[in-house]
């Protein structure tokens, strides 16, 4: 390990990460940071025996992050009695956590569905993650083919800039803060959240999580977030929610949508008549329809679009809200 040639060929980052991965898979008892820097191509050419290797060490720290982002679980072992000393911390990758489970394969139809699922993110917030996932799955050799899955071009629309940052924070169990604008008052407040899940309810993207200030589960509409989503680095990763906690929070939200209703009157044979499927209801007499809603403001938006075709009968706040919106627009366009 002594007489090394100075490396003449530049080793690219992907090569370095790959060499690091192979080294960490190969090692039985794990490698210390110094062993890695001294022996893995991409570092070893620049390693100075007994000298200052601090920039190499930073490179290694960044590379650890890259491996994690690619879903590789680093096994970090700190020998007993030595907890703070990172010269003796050893790193390795366990085969069980690295490889796709044996005998879990996809049929050509399943692969075709997965291809289409990745395509649904095209140009969107998670397209990179979806494409890299598909690249790995293609290594199983299955080609996505199914005569039933033709002529479909799906696009999930998630244009809110906060979407990707929140999704990353969810994966990393990282507490976040953001400024949130209340539609009632227009008041903007900074919120602190342990984000659990992104979900779409009645056409709106919501982030569900544990509100640290309120000490309760809350949902925030992504389009009402008016700042960048920042992760709170000082906070340790939070303990992810259990399946039961998530199910309970979703049930609460569903119950809310079930409880809140509005009644509207619809012009016969108008576009709204079709939108609310009154032509399919089959009673032929009533031109009134009752709608369930989660958010009065979102419903008011939808109803404003059908101006001239619908009128709100109840509740009163919805009537006011729809009207106030038209008034504001009329005043804004003088």
């Amino acid at each position, binding site marked *: 390990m002594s007489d090394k040639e100075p490396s003449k060929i530049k080793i690219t980052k*992907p090569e370095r990460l*790959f060499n690091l991965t192979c080294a960490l898979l190969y090692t039985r008892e794990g490698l210390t940071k110094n062993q890695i820097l001294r022996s893995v191509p991409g570092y070893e050419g620049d390693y100075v025996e007994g000298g200052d290797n601090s920039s190499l060490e930073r490179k290694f720290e960044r590379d650890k992050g890259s491996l994690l982002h690619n879903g590789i679980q680093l096994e970090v072992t700190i020998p007993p009695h030595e907890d703070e000393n990172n010269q003796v911390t050893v790193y390795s990758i366990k085969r069980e956590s690295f490889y796709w489970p044996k005998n879990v394969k996809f049929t050509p139809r399943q692969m075709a569905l997965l291809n289409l699922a990745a395509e649904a993110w095209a140009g969107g917030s998670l397209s990179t993650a979806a494409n890299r*996932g598909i690249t790995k799955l293609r290594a199983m050799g299955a080609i996505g083919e199914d005569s039933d899955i033709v002529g479909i071009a799906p696009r999930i629309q998630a244009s809110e800039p906060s979407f990707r940052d929140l999704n990353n924070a969810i994966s990393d169990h990282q507490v976040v803060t953001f400024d949130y604008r209340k539609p009632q008052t227009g008041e903007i407040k900074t919120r602190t959240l342990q984000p659990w899940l992104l979900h779409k309810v009645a056409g709106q993207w919501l982030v569900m999580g544990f509100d640290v200030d309120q000490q309760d589960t809350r949902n925030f509409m992504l389009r009402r977030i008016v700042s960048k989503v920042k992760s709170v680095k000082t906070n340790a990763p939070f303990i992810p929610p259990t399946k039961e906690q998530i199910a309970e929070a979703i049930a609460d939200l569903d119950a809310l949508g079930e409880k809140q209703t509005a009644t509207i009157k619809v*012009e016969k044979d108008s576009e709204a008549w079709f939108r609310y499927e009154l032509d399919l209801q089959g009673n032929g007499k009533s031109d009134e329809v009752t709608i369930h809603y989660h958010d009065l403001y979102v419903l008011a938006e939808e109803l404003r679009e059908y101006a001239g075709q619908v009128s709100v009968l109840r509740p009163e706040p919805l009537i006011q809200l729809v009207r106030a919106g038209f008034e504001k627009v009329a005043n804004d366009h003088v």
Partner: protein
Amino acid sequence: MSDQLRLDDSDRYNLMLALTGFLVQGDEYEVSELAAQFEVSNEEIVKAVKNIGYTDLIHLNNPDRYVVDYDALEEGYVRISYNLANVVDDVVRLSSRQASALAAGLVYLSSLPGLAESEEIAELQSILSSGDSRGSSPEVIVKPGSKDADLVTIRQAIKLGKAISCDYLNLKGEMRLGRVIEPLRIDLRGELIYLKGWCPETQDVRSFRIDRMRAAQVIDTPISAEALEAEIDDDVYQPGEADTLVTLEVEPEAYSLMSDFRPVEEPESVSEYVKRFKILVGDVRNLGRIVCRFGGAAKVVSPESAKAAVREFALKALGEYSNAAPGDAE
């Protein structure tokens, strides 16, 4: 097959992992075959294979390596053998982000009636989470939207290569009975589902909203050669030459307008939250409902004709609200 965007470092590393896991299972592959399988360019495959061959654990006292046949590679073939113990030699797991992006995409697809049964989606999701390196539950949920039997008919027609006839409510609010459309592609766009279809009357590709469609049925007319050769645009709206350039300002609540309409240039920030952008509009009268919807979070800045159209729509709606009865549609 080289239509994928440029790969970055993480993509290349990811490709090396995937490619190694794939190559060690077989003997010899054509470069172009691998490029097709992984949907990257031939150059990316060659680069990745060379890089795999440079892997070197000699300083860890492991003289073994991946042996790349460089002569074969020159001729467009990939042959890798390996005697490197305990290194990448199988398919690699997904990261949580990768698994959850695919899982969310699957749920989104289930909004298309008849494409996949919910059990099938659930099974795929559970496979994905077992192959996720942390084995966690999905982090993004996309709830299926509304279902429509007409979609099943349209998908059937696309498979058979036949036209459909249907009743269709156009933008002016008129119901056209028995309209013939040659179906080409179903576009899911957020909550809305469109059919891109060839219209034999106008001889061009049009977007039809499925929720405005009723009583679709497959008819015994094959999809024409012109239709099959027609180019299908990704946009729902195709700008025309007589379009008006309209400048809009939006608050965060109305940012979705920037993705619904393709701005002609990058949106600019007017203040901390307000963005300004320009779009092409065929008929400024259509802006009324689009802008009013947001109740003040979106605003037309210019031209005057567009502002007037929006104002008129709002005032008309207010008049109707004071009468408390639905007025006449156009």
